[in-house]
């Protein structure tokens, strides 16, 4: 395989990178308005990890109990540990309702109440049953419905293409370069607008609920273009990951009434969140679990506790939580209707990501300057809607709602802007990456580097963090980055070269992980999902602000001047108790 000229050149008004909920929703919005859009995705669209979301999608429809957007907003603000930007949250809770009805009209099969309305269930951190659901496959049905709608409106998909570089010059986005995974070869996509919707970065951790595809590709590409990432230190650990596997058992289990118990058989959440018990937000429950485990009260002293569903009865479990039952049975041979299921915290959601304003335009710095034509939505983005901790079911809603808003923003941009010229050598960066992985002289294997990264990230930057651990990890990541330069792949072919894709993804993991570590080291407080044993208190005086981080030649440059947007009269920071 040799470095080569672009095989194809495509000119299309909008390129959407990623075909999860945010990407597809944006593409649909554009296609419905008769705009040309190409979706580049490294997996077939229905394989995207939005489909892994199980429990529900939040909107204050008030179908089963009293509810209002204001209440939804209060819960989200409190859940974010007051780091969420309140203008974004306000827009979000109001648009959420529209998003749901739109979905229903598209044909999403929601579970129903007796009187035929969309059913809603309780969820962690929400003060009213607000999660619209379809059994426990909510993300799956949303993803499939959106994909099908995109087929209806003839959205053009570039299936199994991996974006290798962004074409940004003079703060204007001009397109992307992508590798055709199936046939090999680089393609140039020349576009007026680009949407980055590539999902989260949970793959930096060993125990994670994330799919292999969640390698935070656009994060690596953003850093490479000397642009910042925001709030990367905030990684949500989900309390009910299947022991050892890390795959997700839906929070819907607790929404339906499941218990979490320790070795003594007690529902230990009574010591941590006496009011909400198991339905406290995820960061709270995960810390409680980890504390129990660290104090030797894991089951038989091991690294897990129990999720107990037995009292719900087989009928309810099979009707409302079939996937939970199936996963536990197939992966660890535990029938949850008869036995409790071993669980442990698992890296689940990335609150941080590519910084963007309320119109989803990507930010260049903390002052609100933007990169023209570049947009982001979904888990890849940091708006910041979820602040320091996301509430369950707000992610699907966030991806869909801001996907739609991104579609609208891009549609307007496309109408009033012309194509900008491409940089003089658009393939240089992508070709450089490929040739170093294929023709390099080193002997390192990407698999062993990834294993070391993930193991150590879970160990040193998990639920509980402290300076010593993080400094160790900082050393480690430097070492791994050096070794990455010597990575060489076995597969030199062009056709479906999985080796190449995995090695490329590792490059992204290593770059943004460094930013994650530095951001965590700098933030000397505990807020939401970021908990430091050496600074266990929240510090509103010094830290009610966002982290912006750049990767430079000499290391990571941090900037904490970006203030959190707070409506002081309505939702002032309070102590966060559940």
């Amino acid at each position, binding site marked *: 395989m040799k470095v080569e000229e672009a095989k194809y050149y495509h000119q299309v008004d909008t390129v959407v990178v990623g075909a999860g909920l945010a990407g597809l929703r944006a593409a649909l919005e554009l296609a419905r308005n008769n705009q040309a859009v190409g979706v580049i995705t490294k997996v077939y669209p229905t394989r995207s990890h939005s*489909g892994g979301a199980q429990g529900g999608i939040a909107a204050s429809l008030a179908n089963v109990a009293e509810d209002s957007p204001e209440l939804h907003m209060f819960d989200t603000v409190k859940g974010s540990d007051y780091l969420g930007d309140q203008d974004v949250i306000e827009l979000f809770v109001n648009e959420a309702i529209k998003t749901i009805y739109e979905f229903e009209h598209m044909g999403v099969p929601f579970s129903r109440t007796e009187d035929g309305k969309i059913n809603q269930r309780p969820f962690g951190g929400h003060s009213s049953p607000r999660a619209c659901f379809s059994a426990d496959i909510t993300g*799956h049905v949303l993803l499939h419905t959106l994909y099908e709608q995109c*087929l209806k409106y003839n959205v053009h998909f570039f299936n199994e293409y991996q974006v290798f570089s962004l074409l940004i010059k003079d703060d204007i986005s001009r397109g992307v370069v992508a590798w055709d995974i199936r046939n090999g070869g680089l393609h140039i996509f020349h576009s007026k607008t680009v949407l980055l919707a590539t999902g989260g970065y949970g793959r930096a951790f060993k125990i994670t609920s994330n799919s292999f595809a969640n390698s935070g590709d656009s994060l690596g590409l953003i850093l490479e273009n000397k642009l910042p990432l925001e709030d990367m230190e905030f990684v949500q650990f989900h309390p009910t990951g299947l022991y050892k596997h890390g795959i997700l058992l839906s929070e819907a289990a607790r929404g339906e009434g499941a218990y979490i118990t320790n070795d003594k058989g007690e529902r230990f959440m009574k010591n941590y969140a006496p009011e909400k018990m198991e339905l406290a937000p995820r960061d709270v429950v995960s810390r409680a679990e980890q504390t129990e485990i660290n104090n030797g009260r894991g089951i038989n002293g091991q690294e897990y506790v129990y999720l107990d569903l037995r009292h719900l009865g087989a009928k309810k479990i099979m009707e409302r939580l079939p996937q939970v039952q199936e996963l536990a049975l197939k992966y660890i041979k535990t029938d949850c209707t008869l036995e409790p299921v071993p669980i442990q915290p698992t890296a689940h959601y990335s609150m941080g990501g590519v910084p963007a304003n309320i119109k989803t335009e990507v930010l260049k710095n903390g002052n609100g300057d933007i990169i023209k034509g570049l947009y982001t939505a979904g888990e890849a983005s940091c708006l910041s809607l979820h602040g320091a901790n996301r509430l369950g079911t707000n992610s699907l809603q966030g991806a869909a709602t801001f996907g739609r808003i991104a579609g609208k923003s891009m549609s307007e941009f496309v109408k009033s802007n012309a194509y900008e010229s491409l940089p003089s050598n658009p393939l240089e960066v992508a070709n450089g990456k490929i040739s170093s992985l294929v023709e390099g002289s080193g002997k390192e294997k990407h698999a062993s580097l990834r294993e070391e990264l993930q193991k150590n990230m879970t160990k040193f930057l998990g639920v509980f963090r402290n300076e010593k651990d993080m400094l160790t990890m900082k050393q480690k990541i430097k070492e791994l980055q050096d070794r990455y330069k010597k990575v060489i792949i076995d597969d030199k072919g062009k056709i479906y070269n999985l080796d190449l894709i995995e090695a490329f993804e590792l490059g992204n993991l290593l770059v943004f992980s460094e930013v994650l570590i530095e951001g965590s080291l700098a933030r000397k407080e505990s807020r939401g999902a970021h908990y430091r044993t050496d600074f266990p208190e929240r510090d509103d005086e010094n830290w009610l602000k966002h982290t912006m981080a750049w990767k430079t030649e000499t290391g990571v440059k941090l900037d904490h001047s970006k203030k959190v947007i707070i409506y002081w009269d309505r939702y002032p920071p309070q102590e966060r108790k559940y």
Partner: protein
Amino acid sequence: MAKQKIKLKILRYTPEKQKKPYWSTYQLEVDQDSTVLDVLNEIHWNIDGSLSYRRSCRSAICGSCALKVNGQNILACETPIHKFKGKKLKIEPLPGFPIIKDLVVDMDNFFEKLRQIKPFLILKKPLPDKEFTQSPEQFSEIRESILCILCGACTSSCPSLWSNKDYLGPASLLKAYRFIFDSRDDGAMERIDMINDRNGIWRCHTIFNCMEACPKNINITEYISKLKVKIVENSI
């Protein structure tokens, strides 16, 4: 975790190098509770990086990793190797689809067939302000069919497809069922017109392979039969 030595055969094929697929044998040590995907990862990461396959979510919901192991179509991520106790593993790509490389098959036609049955709600009534009402009973008509993850295991297992590549296949027909039997849909006649075709539903000879292959245990054949009855009622 106790380790275990295993021997397995994988059907390999690199179109740049070989004219035909060939069997390659591997020997390795894995955890006893490994899944087929764990084994493939182990080979790809530590033995031969050039082995290609599809995988993504690891939790049996994305549908990427459908493969044929010892004659059965399965999802690699959710199938433990001890399911094939005492037997040597024989891993090959899904039958009935063209091979791209190693265990990766071309599913473009599969998705194209899905497009043809108009897999979206067709509405001829005005939209309500809020949601359409649908009773739990009406929802339960389609509850099982929406579990489909489009992994292709069913369509790939269908002898009718092996002999006739233009046959719509069980996955598309199930999707047609999912919409025709959705109480909100007004497009049944359009879809029936599409599937009431010699290459449509009538190539289904009730062989039941699809049901056996389905990793989500959907009663696909039963739903296809319901469709047949509906079509006969409508067209005669």
